């Protein structure tokens, strides 16, 4: 009979009870029918969530019979699950418990509220029952966690929810102590964190027990590294239970003491003994009682594990991770962060590099040193992570300590050569720059630039890839290729050959792995974002150059690499993509970041992003499009009229006259009248903003001024300078490539002389000289720019004045837009 019923489409709600019944009869086991295929379960779950099978239509829906059907279908479902949950067979029971968790997530609010209590008790019975199998227990933990999560979204059942959650604590702590399966531990940790986050009140009386249980797991030699992290995370959440600043401080103090005590043992013979005692003293001020050790009276500090270096380090790392998590997660009350102790701890760890102080050497055997050195990188890595968390959490309040942190970071940068640690260092510098701003950029710039240059240097890469004899040759080629590429915009045959060396550079056989390069690029990008304008005198040119080379070589010939390398299943492809993206991002930052000169590699950048937009994979192409948009402002400086200013001059004409009375207003203002006022203001402003050096003018004209534009200028006004410089158009330059370098110094004075004389001839206004004198450095450029502006404006003016016919001006406009599009 049912088979004759027709449905509208796949979304018809009458379909739901049918499908659910079908699932129930076909796939879900019952009392008699055993479970045959586990894989079906995943299918059941996905069908339920796709079709929302467990939702029930509201009672007031149109079709009463349909409501009844779907209700009875869900009723059947729930009853079947409850039967399964209480089944004796572990596999059926497991199915019931797991699906119950899904039901908690998916079912309607009314059903959940009316029956969660029953579900909860049936799930809890498995945790209490010593006979239930492990897999059932794991599933129960997760299902209860989901039940509590759903419950937390109802505000009116808060009290009841807390009392339910409280019932869970003791049984699972008991389980945690008795059982030794990692899967179960994971489930328990998850359930406990759910309770901590959602119902902290449920803990109150059992707080100490929980802390002790978790601490004992952390101090247990049997816990795996992965689980250690999870326990550490849970431990870090515990202060939320009480939610007071004292509980936070106490936990932090306990952690720091424990870490330092461990280190005292580990560093024996590697550092002065006084350091450890001082650290402990600092943590337990003489006037106050020292807190109980972590995890209660017998905090596990006296066990036999003291002799295993590896165990100590993994333990200390877990404790440090715990402190880092505590620092970075949010709290409802204010917290007192012991920055001094944290920083001195980090300093203490980083100071030990495995070398023996001369006085200590007789007390340590070679084997001991070997064991310590093997574990030190892990320890340093954790310490750096702790440092980063500290900086992140206190942000601007790091101020009094900032200088010492900078010194710590820079000195460690110099010592540290392990890529993994350097990556951490870069991320610390990035965090420092982001949180402390310009002041920090002033302090760190040199350090970041030096290190990033070393890590990004393509030459450092070849060392282990090519034999010694080849190496010098390759280096030469690479260098040559770099310097050539800057001038070429097209790839000549010779160059393509050279760049074959470069193609291989960033990813294989590299002494600085790709992730390190990405980290250093990110650091450079942040530096440019925060303090790009500061380095104009010193590091900026070097960085711009470096980023241009890196970006070009990262992109050369492998835009399409996502497809080409696709056959390799490992993830190095995404690494490469990320490197490309990081290089492009940093390059864009170098082009956009404020500077006194026009960006030297603008042309290369535009070309690179344009090709990238067309050829690269979607992610990179998306970024390239964004980059082009940002650069559009650079190539077409916006001269939008200021909101309101022109109308103001209409409203208050006397103010204009005031200005002109006292001073001779420069020509353009008079010529263009009020309407152009704002425009002109902006242009002046832009002209002022970019004040290039002589060299840069040369460069700018060569590379960025499009040929069309120079032509236009020539047409508009007979500018001797522009013409003379305009001869140097891109095609000529490619030809005279080799003599270019030698020519530059000769050309510069020529150009500037020409400009000045030209200015005298065509623009005899005092106004300009005055404006320009304010900015000595970029005199020539300002003149040039304003002349250009004037030239075009003047032309338009003259056209308008000569005859009122609109055709010439239209032509003019067309021409302008043409050239714009081409540029």
């Amino acid at each position, binding site marked *: 009979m049912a088979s004759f019923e027709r449905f509208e489409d796949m979304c018809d709600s009458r379909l739901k009870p049918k499908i659910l019944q079908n699932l129930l009869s076909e796939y879900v086991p019952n009392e008699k029918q055993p479970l045959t295929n586990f894989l079906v379960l995943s299918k059941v779950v996905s069908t339920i969530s796709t079709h929302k099978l467990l939702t029930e239509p509201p009672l007031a829906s149109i079709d009463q019979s349909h409501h009844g059907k779907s209700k009875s279908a869900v009723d059947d479902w729930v009853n079947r699950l409850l039967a399964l949950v209480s089944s004796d067979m572990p596999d059926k029971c497991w199915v019931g418990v797991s699906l119950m968790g899904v039901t908690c997530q998916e079912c309607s609010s009314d059903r959940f509220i009316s029956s969660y209590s029953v579900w909860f008790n049936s799930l809890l019975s498995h945790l209490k029952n010593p006979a239930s199998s492990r897999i059932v227990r794991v599933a129960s933990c997760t299902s209860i966690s989901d039940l509590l999560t759903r419950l937390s*979204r109802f505000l009116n059942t808060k009290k009841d929810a807390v009392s339910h959650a409280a019932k869970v604590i003791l049984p699972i702590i008991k389980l945690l102590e008795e059982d030794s399966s990692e899967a179960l531990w994971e489930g328990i940790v998850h359930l406990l964190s759910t309770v901590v986050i959602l119902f902290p009140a449920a803990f109150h009386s059992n707080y100490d027990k929980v802390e002790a249980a978790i601490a004992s797991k952390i101090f247990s030699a049997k816990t795996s590294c992965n689980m250690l992290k999870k326990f550490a995370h849970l431990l870090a959440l515990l202060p939320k239970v009480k939610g007071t600043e004292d509980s936070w401080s106490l936990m932090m103090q306990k952690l720091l003491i424990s870490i330092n005590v461990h280190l005292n043992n580990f560093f024996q013979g590697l550092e002065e003994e006084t350091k450890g005692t001082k650290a402990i003293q600092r943590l337990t001020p003489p006037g106050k009682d020292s807190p109980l050790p972590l995890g209660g009276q017998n905090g596990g500090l006296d066990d036999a594990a003291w002799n295993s270096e590896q165990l100590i380090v993994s333990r200390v790392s877990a404790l440090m991770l715990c402190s880092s998590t505590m620092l970075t997660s949010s709290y409802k009350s204010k917290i007192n962060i012991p920055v001094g102790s944290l920083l001195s701890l980090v300093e203490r760890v980083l100071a030990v590099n495995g070398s023996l102080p001369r006085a200590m050497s007789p007390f340590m055997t070679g084997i001991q040193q070997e064991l310590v050195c093997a574990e030190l990188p892990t320890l340093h890595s954790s310490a750096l992570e702790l440092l980063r968390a500290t900086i992140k959490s206190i942000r601007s309040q790091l101020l009094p300590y900032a200088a010492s942190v900078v010194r710590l970071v820079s000195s460690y940068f110099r010592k540290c050569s392990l890529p993994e640690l350097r990556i951490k260092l870069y991320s610390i510098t990035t965090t420092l720059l982001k949180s402390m701003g310009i002041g920090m950029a002033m302090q760190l710039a040199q350090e970041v630039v030096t290190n990033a240059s070393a890590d990004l240097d393509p030459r450092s890469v070849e060392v282990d890839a090519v034999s010694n004899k080849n190496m010098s040759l390759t280096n030469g080629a690479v260098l040559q290729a770099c310097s050539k590429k800057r001038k070429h915009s097209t790839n000549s045959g010779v160059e393509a050959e050279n760049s074959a060396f470069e193609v291989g550079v960033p990813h294989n056989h590299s002494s600085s792995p790709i992730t390190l390069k990405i980290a250093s690029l990110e650091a450079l990008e942040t530096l440019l974002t925060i303090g790009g304008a500061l380095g104009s005198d010193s590091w900026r040119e070097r960085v711009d150059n470096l980023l241009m080379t890196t970006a070009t070589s990262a992109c050369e010939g492998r835009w399409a690499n996502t497809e080409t390398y696709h056959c390799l299943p490992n993830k190095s492809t995404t690494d490469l993509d990320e490197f490309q993206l990081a290089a492009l991002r940093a390059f864009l930052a170098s082009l956009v970041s404020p500077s006194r000169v026009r960006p030297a590699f603008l042309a290369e950048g535009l070309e690179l992003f344009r090709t990238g937009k067309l050829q690269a994979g979607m992610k990179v192409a998306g970024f390239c499009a964004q980059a082009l948009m940002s650069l559009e402002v650079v190539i077409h400086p916006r001269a939008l009229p200021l909101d309101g200013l022109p109308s103001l001059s209409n409203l208050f004409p006397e103010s204009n006259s005031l200005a002109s009375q006292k001073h001779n207003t420069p020509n353009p203002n008079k010529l263009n009248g009020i309407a152009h006022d704002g425009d002109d203001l902006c242009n002046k402003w832009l002209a002022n903003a970019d004040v290039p050096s002589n060299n840069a003018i040369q460069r700018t004209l060569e590379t960025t001024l499009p040929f069309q534009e120079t032509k236009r200028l020539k047409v508009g006004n007979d500018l001797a300078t522009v013409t003379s410089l305009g001869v140097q158009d891109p095609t000529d330059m490619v030809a005279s490539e080799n003599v270019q370098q030698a020519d530059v110094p000769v050309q510069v004075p020529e150009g500037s002389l020409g400009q000045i004389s030209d200015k005298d001839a065509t623009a005899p206004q005092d106004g300009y000289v005055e404006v320009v004198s304010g900015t000595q450095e970029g005199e020539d450029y300002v003149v040039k720019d304003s002349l250009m502006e004037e030239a075009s404006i003047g032309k338009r003016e003259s056209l308008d004045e000569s005859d009122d016919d609109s055709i010439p001006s239209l032509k003019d406009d067309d021409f302008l837009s043409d050239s714009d599009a081409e540029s």
Partner: protein
Amino acid sequence: MEISVIASSSVESEIGSWDLKTGNKLLQFKPCASPAHGLTAVGEKFLAASQLRKESASSGSIFYWSWNKPQVEVKSFPVESIKALTANNEGTYLVGGGTSGDIYLWEVATGKLLKKWHGHYRSVTCLVFSGDDSLLVSGSQDGTVRVWSLIRLFDDFQRQHGNTLYEHNFNEHTMSITDIVIDYGGSNALIISSSEDRTCKVWSLSKEKLLKNIIFPSAINSLALDPCGSVFYAGARDSKIYIGAINATSEYGTQVLGSVSEQSKAVTCLAYCADGNLLISGSESGMVCVWDPKSRRPVRTFNLGKNPVNNIQVVRKTIVANSNKAQSSWKRRGSLIPPPLEKYERSGEDTMDGIVTIEPLPYSDVPVYNSFLSADLIDEQVKELQQQGSAATEIEMERLKLEYKRSLQMNDQWQKNYENLLQVVMEEEQIGGSN
């Protein structure tokens, strides 16, 4: 978000506060008589103002008010009279400039005087933090504007090496600095200073030099910056508010926005509220006027009695909805006013006890959402079960087979041994029997 305007006067009276959107009068705080630039909101936490004192008084004073009480909550007495007072954006540090030219930096949470340094030769008149709080710009009666990097000030190591403390020193002004503003340019920011010498000067932070000099018809008391750049507002002594163009072609690139009052009472202070683009001016006549800079018309006026206004601040407060207990308790804790500011720098070990207090973010109370895991767990466990059917079990099976084989061999061995032994014993017995 609640945006209010607060205004104080140099004559002892109350600090007025008004809601900028509705124009309603809010709570008044008293008593207060503060110098120009002596009023500041400390983050969103509370209000602080330095106090003008009689010449005879040996120490200065700084008062705190919490937002919900009209009376002074905390009084501090620094060693000298504090002219300019400002706090960083987070409200964690308070910086004051004294009449002697010394600048003081206090940590708000503890009241500790973290740093004191000699900033200028004469009284400090205004103090401004850069957008990212890492730089401090100070102006003085001696006409100098100086830029300080706070990080470097705390760097005792560099200090001992005899470097100058300041980053930049701009000294082209000929008379006392009256106000300083800094724009959103980050490391390439512009600093504009106004002075009694009837000029405003535009400085570049990155180029470390004067970019533009703009001459006004009258001495300028205060500045406000249009955040979108290129234009700033200058409140003059001749009761007019001028518009200055930062990049004007001439030195006279100014226009008049409007004048506050007819009686030519000086405009003493300006503030810009980016939310709604409003300019707020205060005048010696006691009027606080809100302008719409686009239409150049006053939108609203407030009146602070007859007393001359000399400080205006726009204060933003995040309003936390009182939906549950935890939040209100946070509010209670959050509104606690910190201890008074200390007079002297601590010395020795005690200087930094290494504790930093972090206030919770106002939104850290949003309900947490936990994610559901059951569905994932099922997939995981199914996979595990599946795998146990293959790899793990196979290995186990092989191991067991091997073991079984070995024990079979062992069994044979024992069997043999037993038989051998039995044989020996039998033989011996036979021999014994025959004997």
